[in-house]
């Protein structure tokens, strides 16, 4: 575990990294010539990609932390309650019926509505079964997710090839957000969600010991658990609506960070927001420069990098005497 001072040391290079990412683009390396309108537009494009990547990365990482704590499952990730299938189905419906001509906001809106509808469905079904325990929620999420995926496949089988191509590309993840107002809306939603999660950081810590122990420690589990799951899913749905399905970030960023910050969510959540966002921006920079001018989907890069990196972390033996921690004062 790191001391606070060491964490700040790791935080310092981040703004430089993000600025560096602005230099990279599928049209070449270098600061665009801001004298020409093309150059300004290029810079704006790259800025929007970096900003979107940061917001989406932060949203997915924080949502992943919360899901893993509440569901007490190391494999839990932001999409576990059907968000990915719902978002895909919503986006696919918009694309297949050509609704994106109505407005550039139609596609994100459709994806968001789909994701939110999936969560509502999961909660309703869990309520019918009679319990909101982690196991019930996860199983219901799996069931709803597979039903929605089947509907998606049904839609794909009837859709024209062009629509199928578009839907598949959307699902692979893309950080080019349509417009600044849209990004502002999404950023607002994500900030709200992460704020709610941070406010419940102490409850999250207690919930790591189980719902019963948390109850004994004074946490109102009946309110805290749905609130936390709702906030995490809101963050995930907002991320999905603007960027498609980007996997691995919400799963491994929390695990990777816990080795350095410990399980205390008062440290883990802010670090997840900052480092998770940076991680995704770096992956996206790679995605658009590795095979320039072709851009590969960012979800591919996160999986290809995230997997081996996580394996590397697992093989690291724990140091015999961990670094001395200063008391959080």
């Amino acid at each position, binding site marked *: 575990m790191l001391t606070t001072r060491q964490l700040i040391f790791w935080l310092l290079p981040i703004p430089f990294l993000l600025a560096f990412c602005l230099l990279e683009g599928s049209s070449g390396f270098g600061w665009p010539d801001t004298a020409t309108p093309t150059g300004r537009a290029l810079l704006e494009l790259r800025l929007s990609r970096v900003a979107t990547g940061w917001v989406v990365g932060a949203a997915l990482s924080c949502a992943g932390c919360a899901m893993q704590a509440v569901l007490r499952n190391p494999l839990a990730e932001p999409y576990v309650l059907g968000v990915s299938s719902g978002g895909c189905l919503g986006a696919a419906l918009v694309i297949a019926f050509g609704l994106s001509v109505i407005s550039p906001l139609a596609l994100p809106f459709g994806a968001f509505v789909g994701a939110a509808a999936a969560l509502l469905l999961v909660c309703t079904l869990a309520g019918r079964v009679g319990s909101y325990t982690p196991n019930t929620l996860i199983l219901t999420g799996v069931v709803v997710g597979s039903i929605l995926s089947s509907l998606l496949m049904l839609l794909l089988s009837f859709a024209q090839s062009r629509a199928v191509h578009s839907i598949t590309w959307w699902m692979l993840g893309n950080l080019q957000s349509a417009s600044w107002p849209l990004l502002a809306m999404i950023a607002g939603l994500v900030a709200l969600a992460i704020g709610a999660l941070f406010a419940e950081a102490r409850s999250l810590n*207690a919930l790591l010991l189980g719902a*019963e122990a948390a109850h004994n420690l004074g946490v109102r589990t009946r309110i805290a658990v749905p609130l936390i799951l709702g906030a995490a899913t809101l963050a995930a749905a907002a991320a999905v609506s603007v960027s498609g399905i980007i996997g691995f970030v919400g799963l491994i960023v929390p695990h990777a960070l816990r080795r350095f910050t*410990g399980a205390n969510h008062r440290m883990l959540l802010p670090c997840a927001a900052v480092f998770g966002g940076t991680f995704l921006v770096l992956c996206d920079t790679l995605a658009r420069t590795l095979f320039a001018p072709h851009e590969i989907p960012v979800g591919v890069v996160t999986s290809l990098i995230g997997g081996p990196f996580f394996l590397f972390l697992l093989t690291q033996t724990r140091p015999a005497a961990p670094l001395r921690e200063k008391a*959080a004062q």
Partner: protein
Amino acid sequence: MITLEHVTARYGENIVLNDVSFTVGRGEMLALVGPNGAGKSSLLRVITGQLPAQGTARVCGTDTVRLCPRTRAKTLAVVPQEIARDIPFAARDFVLLGRTASLPRFGGPSDADDDAVRDAMLLTETWNLRDRLLPEMSGGERQRLALAMALAGKPEILLLDEPTSHLDLRHRAEIMRLLTRLNREQRTTILMVVHDLTLASQFFSRLILLSASRVLADGAPADVLRPDLLETAYACPVRVIPLPGVSATCVLPKL
């Protein structure tokens, strides 16, 4: 402090507590004994308000289910049987969890919180472990930390569910000595679920024997640890041997 009157609790169709009544006064120290499945853990859940029940269940005069969670957590602390070993908490942060009810939502721990944590860890002899991570500790160290976490909240009532199961002889003795001291010096009310009847007779002046969701006996060890009662409860022949010099009773199964 704890009052149960004609409490009946059930999980679905299963009745786990059947017309249980007893009162625990301030500063009492009593052990809850009985066979597996008798309803001991369910009884603890009724007291903590997790299991709603028919009848009256009150803690400090208020119904257990109506008690505000923060107030309840400050009055009553539970030491669980098992602490999951894979949560990467530093020991000090883990014990700080015991202060959850008094910690502010956004701010850091106050001096009072830090002092309470230090006192609790010194009492349980875990202060030297404060920077180590939970997964690196032995079962005994984790159990002492669980007790420290409960004590950090400075509760008036301590509920313990088999806290000595993983401890060796020395640590078991130390925990029981600590609990006895707490009870004597700070008048902490202690209610502990125990499997070891000999241990129960040695440290507790009052025992409640639960069997098949009913209270079979409630009183001093000499009155509760009777062969006929024990054989009814455990469905197994027992030998009860009083140990005169040490005010304890040895209970052995008859083979």
